[in-house]
Structure formats: C-alpha cells, structure tokens
C-alpha cells in the first residue's frame, strides 16, 4: 500500500525536480558570468597605472595668501600720513599770508605796537571813522592803547608827526590813520590828518567829504593851506584830502614846500598824521617815513603777505623807529597749541555785543549777509 503510494507520487516529484533543476542552472550560469566579469575587471584594473603620484597630502591654510591684509593696512596708513602731510604742506605753501600776531612778531626786527581787532559790525566798502560812533568798542579800546603806547615810543615830545603806511593798499592804512587820528583827537590834542596817498586817495571817503582841493593843489601853490583844511565830526580833528591826482606825486613830496607845510601845521596842531602811500610799490612813502617821529607800518591779518615781514626788516635798517601795527585781528578764539590764539573775546565793555555776536556768527554761518 505504502509502496503503491510512493510509486504513484513519482511523476510529480519528477516534474518538481526538473523545475528546480532549471532554476539552478539559470543561477549557476548567472553566477559564473559575474565571476567571469569580476576577473575581467580585476585584470583591467591591475593593468591601469595612474600618471601621478601624491607626494604629500594638501595643506589646509586658514589665511588667504592674497590679498595681504597687513600690506594693505601698512600702505593705507602710509598713504594716509602722506596725504595728510602733503595737505598741510600744500595749505602752508598756498597760505602766504600772516595770520597771527605771534607769527608776525617772530623774527621781526621792528617793534610791535599792538593789534586792532577786525571791524565786524558791517562790511566796510571804504574806511570809516568808527571811534567817534562807538567809543566803547573793542576797536576804540585797542586804538586807545596804541595811542598810549605811542606816548612810550616818543615821550616828552609835544609835537608829533605820525606816518602810516603798509605794503600794498587794502591793508587798512587809511582806516588806521583816520581812526588813530580820531582817538588822539579825543584825548584833547589838536590833530590833522593829511592824505598823501595821492594815487589812491581815500581819506575824504572816510570822512564823507569832497576831494576837489587838497595836498596836491596846496603843494603846487594853487590853494592855500587854510582853504583845504576840512573839519570832521570830532572837533579836535581836521584833515586835508589828497586833492586831484597829480602826474608826479613823488616830486611834490620832495619839494621844500612840503617841509614848510608841516612846519606851519605844527604851529596850529599838536599831532600831524599822514596817510602815506604804500611802500611796497613806490618809494615816496619811504621819504615821508624818514621824516616821521613815529613811522607806522600796518599789516593786515590773513591778507598781508609773509613777504611783508622781509620788507619791514629791510626798512628798519634805514628807519629804526619803524613800528608795526597788526590790523583786523580775528574775533574768534581759535583753540590752537599753547593757548587760544589771538582772539579778543567780546567787546571791551562786554554785555553790549555778546548776544549780537552769537547771532551774527550763526547768520554768517548760514550765509546770511547782515
């Protein structure tokens, strides 16, 4: 029974066996193929030789080799210093004007009489007499101290001849001459101001008077002295304008009449002040300076050239009495080295101008013309 059973199942086993055998042969074939391929690739791999050799592995450097920070910083610093210095140098070379009293005093052989602050109330087209209008202003105060110092230079002399000059025009020669005459007149001395700058007469403009006759016509004998003397708003102060411009101003000054005229004026006046032509261009100024008891040379802040100092030192050799006056000192306190510059602060009698100056400063900063 059992055997019969087994025989009966034989054909199905037979089919199962053939089925599995088929699968087996497929896998075996596939496996052999892979083996073959592996051997093939192994041979191929072993046959390839690389054309490079790693001598050492790559280094990982955290700092870039370019751009070089240090080099840029150093060159930046260098260029910065260079630009700074060259800017200073250029500004120094371009600024050929005298800007502080200290700077002027340095290596100046003439004696320094003092300084006069800048007139900042209004823009002055022509020189004006300001000492009578505002006797308490800083300008008046400064001029009074100059007057006192003049007394020191020329003591015990009743009659004085003061000649005011500058290097070129525009430095405040007429302003100083007229206002200095004004403060001297206010000190109870009889003063006369002569305008001998016959090429560019300005004194009559300062006093707002005419200039039809004056020094030139007196010196040629056309008018008398008395005819030409004009009064001013200050009772002790008179002046003679330059008169029409003559063709030969230097010759007129050289004439004997000029000395006689001065002599005659001293019979009436205590002080004769002369507005002299600038000495930078023409020589007639020097002739008058030699005659003066007090020759005064006006230098203007931030306007007069540094070469003016050389000019002064040269003049001092022939005119040892020559005194220098610094005009238009700046009002602003500049915080510089060693102090506060030469600002004069507020007006002599403060309180009257303090607020005004602050407002006007703001105005001038804003570009508003007062």
């Amino acid at each position: 029974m059992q055997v019969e059973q087994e025989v009966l199942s034989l054909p199905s086993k037979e089919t199962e066996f053939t089925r599995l055998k088929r699968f087996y042969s497929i896998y075996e074939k596939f496996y052999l193929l892979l083996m073959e391929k592996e051997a093939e690739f192994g041979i191929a791999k072993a046959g390839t030789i690389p054309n490079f050799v790693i001598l050492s592995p790559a280094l990982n450097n955290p700092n870039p080799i370019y751009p070089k920070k240090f080099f840029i910083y150093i060159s930046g610093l260098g260029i910065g210093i260079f630009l700074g210095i060259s800017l200073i140098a250029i500004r120094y070379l371009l600024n050929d004007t005298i800007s502080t009293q200290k700077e002027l005093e340095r290596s100046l052989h003439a004696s320094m009489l003092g300084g006069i602050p800048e007139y900042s109330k209004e823009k002055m087209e022509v020189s004006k007499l300001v000492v009578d209008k505002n006797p308490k202003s800083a300008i008046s105060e400064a001029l009074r101290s100059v007057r006192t110092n003049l007394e020191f230079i020329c003591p015990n002399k009743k009659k004085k001849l003061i000649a005011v000059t500058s290097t070129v025009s525009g430095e405040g020669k007429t302003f100083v001459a007229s206002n200095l005459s004004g403060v001297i007149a206010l000190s109870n001395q009889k003063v006369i101001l002569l305008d001998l700058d016959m090429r560019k007469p300005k004194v009559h403009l300062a006093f707002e008077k005419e200039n039809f006759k004056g020094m030139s016509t007196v010196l040629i004998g056309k008018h008398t002295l008395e005819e030409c003397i004009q009064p001013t708003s200050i009772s002790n102060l008179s002046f003679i304008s330059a008169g029409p411009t003559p063709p030969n101003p230097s010759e007129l000054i050289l004439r004997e009449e000029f000395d006689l005229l001065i002599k005659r004026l001293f019979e009436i006046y205590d002080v004769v002040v002369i507005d002299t032509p600038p000495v930078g261009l023409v020589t007639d100024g020097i002739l008058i300076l030699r005659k003066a008891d007090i020759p005064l040379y006006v230098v203007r802040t931030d306007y007069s050239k540094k070469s003016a100092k050389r000019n002064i030192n040269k003049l001092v050799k022939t005119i040892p009495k020559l005194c220098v006056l610094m005009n238009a000192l700046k009002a602003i306190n500049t915080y510089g080295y060693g102090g506060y510059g030469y600002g004069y602060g507020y007006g002599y009698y403060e309180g009257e101008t303090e607020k005004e100056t602050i407002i006007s400063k703001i105005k001038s900063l804003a570009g508003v013309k007062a």
Partner: protein
Amino acid sequence: MFGLFKKKDKETVAEDSLFVDMHSHVLPGIDDGADSPEDALELLKAFEQFGYKKLIATPHIMGDFFRNTPEIISEKLQELQCLIKDNNLSIKLEAAAEYYLDEWFMAKLRSGEQLLTLGSNYLLFETSYINESSFLDEALFLMKSQGYKPVMAHPERYTYLYSDFSLFKKIYEKGVLFQVNINSLSGYYSKAAQVFAGKLIDNCMVDMLGSDCHGIRHIEAMKKARISKHYKKALQLNLLNNYL
C-alpha cells in the same frame, strides 16, 4: 599765641564766603556801570542777598571817557550812602577807583597825586584788553615806590596774555596782586577768560575776587559763577577781600 589764633580765625572766615566786594561800578551815572540811583539800589540789594557786608565801588577813571575825580566819586558815594540809609539796607558802601593804565594815569603817578585806594593802600588798575601796555613796568615801579600795592584787575580778560600762561606768571612775579572776576569763572566773558581764571586759581595766583558788576546782568551771571568749582576753590585761597 595771639597770632596763631588770629590766623586760624582768618582762615575760617575766608572759607565761609566773601563779605567784601572790591570791584564794582555801582556809583550811578559816572561810568558805564549803574545808570540811575534806582539801578544802583537794586544792585546793592542783590549784593546784600548774596551775603556781602561791604561793597567798595570802583568807578572807571580813564583819560578820555570817564574823567572821574576823587571829588566826583566821593560826592556820588555820599548820595548813594544816603539812599542806603533811607532804604534801611545794612550793606556798607565805600569807594575807590579802577584806574585805566593810560597817559593820564601815568601823569598822575609821575606827579605823585594822591590816588584812590581800597583797604590798606591797594590800588586797583586795569590795562588795555588787546594790547600790552608799554608803560606797565614804569607804572608798577611808580606805584610801589609811592607805597601803593598794585592790584591788576581781571588779568584773565587780557587777550595779550593768552598766547602763553607764563606771561601771567611774569607779571605776577613783578609783585602785582591779581584780582579775578567772579563772572569769569562761569565763562561769562569768554571761554578763554574762564580757562585762564581757572588756571590762575589752580596756581594760587589770585589775591582778590571781584564782581566787576556793571548792572543787573552781572548779578544774574554771578548766580551761576558762585556755584562753579573754581569759585569754591578760590575761596580756599588766602583772599584779601574780607580784610579790606
């Protein structure tokens, strides 16, 4: 023993506050200070409120603008003293002068004319603000030779000294006493005046403090100056104010 006590007493007084002001323009109508007796009275009241016991009025004497004489000053002083009495103020008023160093002052010194002084022969004078005076040395010599003790008013306001602090020292060493304006200490006049006033105090070169009061504006400004650091420091110096 007595001297020791006296000195100590002096110091405590000086530390407290100022009782005497020695530089003001309260005498009305004779300079650029108080205009009217009413203004002057107002100023005196303000000084009393500050705790001052005595005020020495020092009108300008200047050759060309304020031609004050001892007669004019003493007349004005008497007027104002009467007014003080009428208004029951307790402040004491005296008068001297602030001489401007000009030709007229030199003439007075040369002629030996009796000058107005404060306390024991202290002579208050001022110079130009902008230009150095050529007469300073001669003036100092003449003052000292006549027995005056020269007191230079507000040196911190003289711009001709600003280029170098040693210029102040040079003048101080000539034997001048320095009087600094109280209002300089708060920068009322200018920043530079404040800085130099401070430096003078730091260098113990201040002998007197003055209000230099010309009007109520200076009283207002003093309120600020009196609380400044340098004001307190100045009071520690041996100021001469309270002995005037």
